[in-house]
């Protein structure tokens, strides 16, 4: 592998390892004197724990130790935290009920942790757990979100009356009401944004070690952000000083947000490893993943859109109830507020917007960020109601969007919901998407389908997202407990090869390729001379991790900054070696040159001189090893339009996606193949939400009915067609790579694109307003046949 440039379709370096089964995941680790943990979980959605008797279990073969919530409480282990303080309408912070790592007296969802059994083998731990006797007093549970804020609803936490975590608002209500009063047309819409289970391919896993000699702890965990995990465990939960706790997230098989958070299991493992002085391992079974990985979405929304007679949007108001589940997960509070309501302008010039969000506790699994986090929910509301307005006003839905797009010369554009869009050019994206989708030919295709007894529909979704998360001062002012910069270190070795140490974490995104690619391009170093190192708090500088499509815009920018420092230092070395003035040195294609001469020093020679400084500037430190931290000045704003075409079989209700187009503006593209992978995966997740996936609970017992793949419908390859992709590029003006991020776009836009197509198809039989996600065959059939 030689030098590569930004923009090339470089094959992913990591895939050989992953595809040949040579990845190293937490469960692959072989630790000395290891023990295994099994977590006994609540079978009830809501119950008081009257008594736990562990005596029989403790005598079971192989048992090392059993801990219950009482032990954890007595040891004064801190509760798990929510790292984002959202202030309600009245300026009060959200309700923050305790979230013990193990339930002490009350269980609040099926799967809540009740006891931890540590034994010599995983089976022995489970055998013993079956012998634990728990005396539960089963209490009424509130499962359903729609009724959670009802005053008579069962209470999840005594210190969150009415199950209300916060009643929050954004925007100018009076101005919105005034605009509605003058509107020529008002469109109203009620939506459910269905709850999803993240389903990373690798289940969560952890292994903890305690070194009696040094007092140091090591936690191996399936984390998207090992430093954040260390910070939270150290500062808030376990009190182990940060420098005595090493967190390693080795190869991680997917996260989609669910591995950002700090969960009870790794917390308990770390704590218990210190108590028993032996290493402990745990890997979730798939059923535990279903029950305990933080779920996504789960909103009930009423929205209204005011338009003038020509279809120009005048105002938008949105009322949402968001489900937080039984406890606040690590960033739960931010998702339905700052990651949601701030996106309600979409790509449009909507002058005034008001959004009210009430977040509710229920006796269900905690809900937190899941691919897109708030932005898919916002896009679904905006893009559903815009299409509905177009249908009601008999204006073509693409045309109505076009009339409302922010013009390309209006950037930077201040929306009425706090964000300043940095760049974009929406109309050419729509043009390209319409062309790829043969939008003009839809009427003929609808007629042909009708002749076969089928219903065709086409759906448009123009999305915006705020990613490259995030400017620290901005998120700090909104309540975030952390800064959201990123770190990088470029560490040359004397022989000229290079390690990129990054605070971003790769769990499927392909950083080992793209990060190496940007450095190969920038420094002119062959790809196989570059190693990307991540995921170990003892190896890499403090970093904030991977989520919110931030790795390239923020992590990549930190790498570029560090590379600039390398070049600056290299210039000094090269100037010395060539006996030239530093100001006359230029760096091109991996070589320092004296302008106007043919004198040249390759970077590798400058690196060698820096490590073997026999002939070296007197005032310069040896070594070629530079650190950089990058704090973005704004979010980035990828945008795009997806067009989906479906054919519905009215006899069975089956929805067949016959065509799917996505045209995106991700700014500059480093590796088109990696971007395609992200877009494909994202679209499929969005299609999953629209047509297939649903975390369905029994409304009385709180059992997760779709708690396995027998009942939870994961999208499969044959559920989607080949996608047609296109790009428009407006480079991000405020980061050195001009990139915007592409990790979430597919999942953000696809639900609305698919559902708008389904509604368009169902409009032929008047059923367009009777369908919610997921539009399963049964639901589509029922919608068609409801009279």
């Amino acid at each position: 592998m030689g030098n590569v440039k930004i923009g090339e379709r470089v094959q992913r370096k990591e895939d050989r390892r992953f595809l040949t089964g040579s990845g190293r995941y937490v469960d692959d680790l072989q630790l000395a004197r290891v023990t295994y943990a099994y977590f006994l979980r609540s079978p009830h959605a809501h119950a008081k724990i009257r008594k736990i008797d562990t005596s029989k279990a403790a005598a079971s073969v192989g048992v090392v130790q059993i801990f219950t919530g009482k032990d954890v409480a007595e040891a004064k282990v801190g509760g798990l935290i929510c790292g984002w303080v959202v202030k309600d309408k009245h300026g009060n912070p959200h309700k923050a009920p305790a979230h013990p790592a193990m339930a002490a007296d009350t269980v609040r969802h099926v799967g809540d942790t009740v006891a931890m059994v540590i034994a010599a083998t995983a089976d022995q731990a489970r055998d013993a757990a079956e012998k634990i006797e728990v005396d539960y007093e089963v209490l009424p549970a509130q499962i359903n979100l729609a009724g959670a804020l009802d005053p008579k609803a069962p209470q999840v936490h005594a210190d969150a009356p009415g199950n209300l975590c916060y009643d929050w608002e954004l925007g100018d209500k009076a101005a919105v009401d005034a605009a509605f009063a003058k509107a020529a047309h008002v469109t109203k819409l009620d939506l459910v944004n269905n709850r999803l289970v993240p389903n990373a391919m690798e289940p969560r896993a952890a292994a903890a070690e305690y070194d009696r000699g040094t007092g140091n702890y090591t936690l191996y965990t399936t984390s998207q952000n090992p430093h954040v995990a260390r910070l939270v465990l150290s500062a808030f939960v376990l009190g182990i000083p940060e420098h005595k706790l090493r967190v390693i997230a080795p190869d991680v098989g997917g996260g989609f947000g669910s591995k950002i958070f700090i969960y009870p299991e790794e917390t308990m493992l770390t704590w218990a490893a210190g108590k028993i002085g032996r290493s402990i391992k745990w890997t979730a079974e798939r059923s535990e993943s279903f029950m305990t990985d933080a779920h996504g979405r789960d909103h009930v929304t009423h929205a209204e859109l005011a338009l003038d007679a020509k279809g120009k949007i005048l105002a938008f108001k949105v009322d949402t109830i968001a489900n937080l589940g039984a406890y606040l997960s690590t960033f739960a509070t931010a998702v339905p507020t700052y990651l949601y309501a701030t996106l309600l302008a979409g790509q449009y010039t909507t002058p005034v917007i008001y959004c009210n969000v009430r977040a509710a506790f229920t006796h269900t699994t905690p809900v937190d960020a899941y691919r897109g986090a708030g932005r898919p929910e916002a896009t679904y509301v905006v893009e559903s109601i815009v299409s509905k307005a177009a249908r009601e006003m008999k204006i073509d839905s693409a045309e109505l969007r076009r009339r409302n797009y922010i013009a390309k010369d209006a950037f930077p554009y201040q929306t009425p919901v706090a964000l300043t869009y940095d760049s974009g050019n929406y109309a050419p994206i729509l043009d390209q998407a319409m062309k790829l989708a043969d939008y003009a030919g839809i009427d003929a295709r609808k007629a042909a389908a009708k002749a076969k007894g089928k219903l065709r529909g086409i759906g448009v979704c123009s999305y915006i997202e705020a990613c490259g998360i995030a400017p620290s001062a901005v998120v700090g002012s909104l309540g975030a407990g952390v800064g959201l910069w990123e770190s990088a270190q470029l560490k040359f070795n004397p022989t000229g090869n290079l390690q990129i140490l990054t605070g971003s974490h790769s769990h499927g995104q392909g950083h080992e390729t793209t990060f190496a690619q940007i450095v190969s391009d920038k420094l002119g170093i062959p790809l196989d001379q570059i190693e990307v190192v991540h995921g170990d708090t003892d190896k890499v500088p403090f970093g904030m991790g991977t989520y919110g499509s931030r790795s390239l815009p923020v992590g990549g920018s930190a790498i570029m900054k560090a590379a600039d420092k390398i070049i600056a230092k290299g210039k000094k070395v090269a100037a010395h070696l060539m006996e030239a003035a530093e100001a006359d040195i230029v760096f091109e294609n991996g070589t320092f040159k004296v302008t106007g001469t043919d004198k040249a020093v390759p970077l590798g020679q400058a690196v060698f001189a820096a490590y073997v400084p026999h002939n070296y500037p007197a005032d310069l430190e040896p070594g070629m090893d530079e650190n950089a931290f990058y704090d973005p000045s704004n979010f980035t704003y990828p945008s795009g339009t997806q067009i989906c075409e479906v054919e519905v079989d009215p006899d069975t209700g089956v929805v067949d996606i016959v065509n799917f187009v996505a045209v995106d503006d991700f700014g500059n593209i480093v590796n088109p193949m990696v971007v395609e992978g992200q877009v494909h995966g994202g679209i499929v997740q969005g299609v999953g939400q629209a047509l297939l996936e649903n975390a369905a609970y029994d409304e009385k017992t709180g059992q997760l009915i779709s708690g396995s793949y027998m009942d939870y419908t994961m999208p499969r390859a044959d559920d989607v067609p080949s996608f047609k992709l296109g790009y428009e590029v407006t480079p991000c003006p405020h980061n050195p790579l001009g990139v915007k991020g592409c990790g979430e776009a597919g999942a953000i836009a696809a639900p609305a694109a698919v559902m708008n197509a389904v509604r368009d198809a169902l409009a032929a039989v008047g059923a367009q307003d009777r369908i919610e996600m997921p539009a399963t065959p049964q639901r589509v059939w029922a919608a068609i046949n409801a009279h």
Partner: protein
Amino acid sequence: MYDFAYHKPKSVADASAAVKKASEGKLMAGGMTLIPTIKQRLARPSDVVDLGGIGDLKGIKVDASGVTIGAMTKHAEVAASADVAKAIPALAKLAANIGDAQVRNRGTIGGSVANNDPAADYPAALVGLGATVHTNERKIAADDFFKGMFETALKDGEIITAVSFPVAKKAAYMKFPNPASRYAMVGVFVADTAGGARVAVTGAGPGVFRVKDMEAALGKGWSADAVAGIKVPAGGLNNDIHASREYRAHLVTVMAKRAVAAAG
């Protein structure tokens, strides 16, 4: 999983003896259902008797009287058999649409039939074609074999050795898969047999059942229209998050129509 003793006998007689001797013996074919239930601790056999070492249970025989498939024959083998495809194409096609490639290469006809999952495909073919289940002790007509959810006429320790299917004049199977599991949410097998038209439904109810009204209508004239107006009562059908009983009842008619049309 809990500990169990593992046996791999070489003959049906030894297998039968081993399973009868055990306090809680379980026969294992491909393990596609048995192993997950053991892993999830839903089953706790004392002894597992693996039928994989018994050559007599494998293979497909096609002659004038019909198709006989050894109990340990895998779905993939039935799907790929040119002889089956020629004699009863609907049967080969049914096997080709069971589960996924891994399941088809481990799962067996004997295991599927013995398990009698209400959403399994083979039971529809057995009942639809009027097949016979052969065991180490007797022969059982398909109509008498399936007894409702996960229940069969098999006695403790009785081993299915083969299933024989008479050749039909025409036959077809139409499956509406459960979106999640891809088992049959509704599957309808129709056949025009020597003994008359047969319509067998799987997935919709607690077990495979025949629709006599449709059979009678098809007996008068084989056409999709003949069954189009016949609805099974929704009352006794399965009702779950994927399909209400009313939707299932509706799908039975739609799938029956399509199966009749496909059979030609």
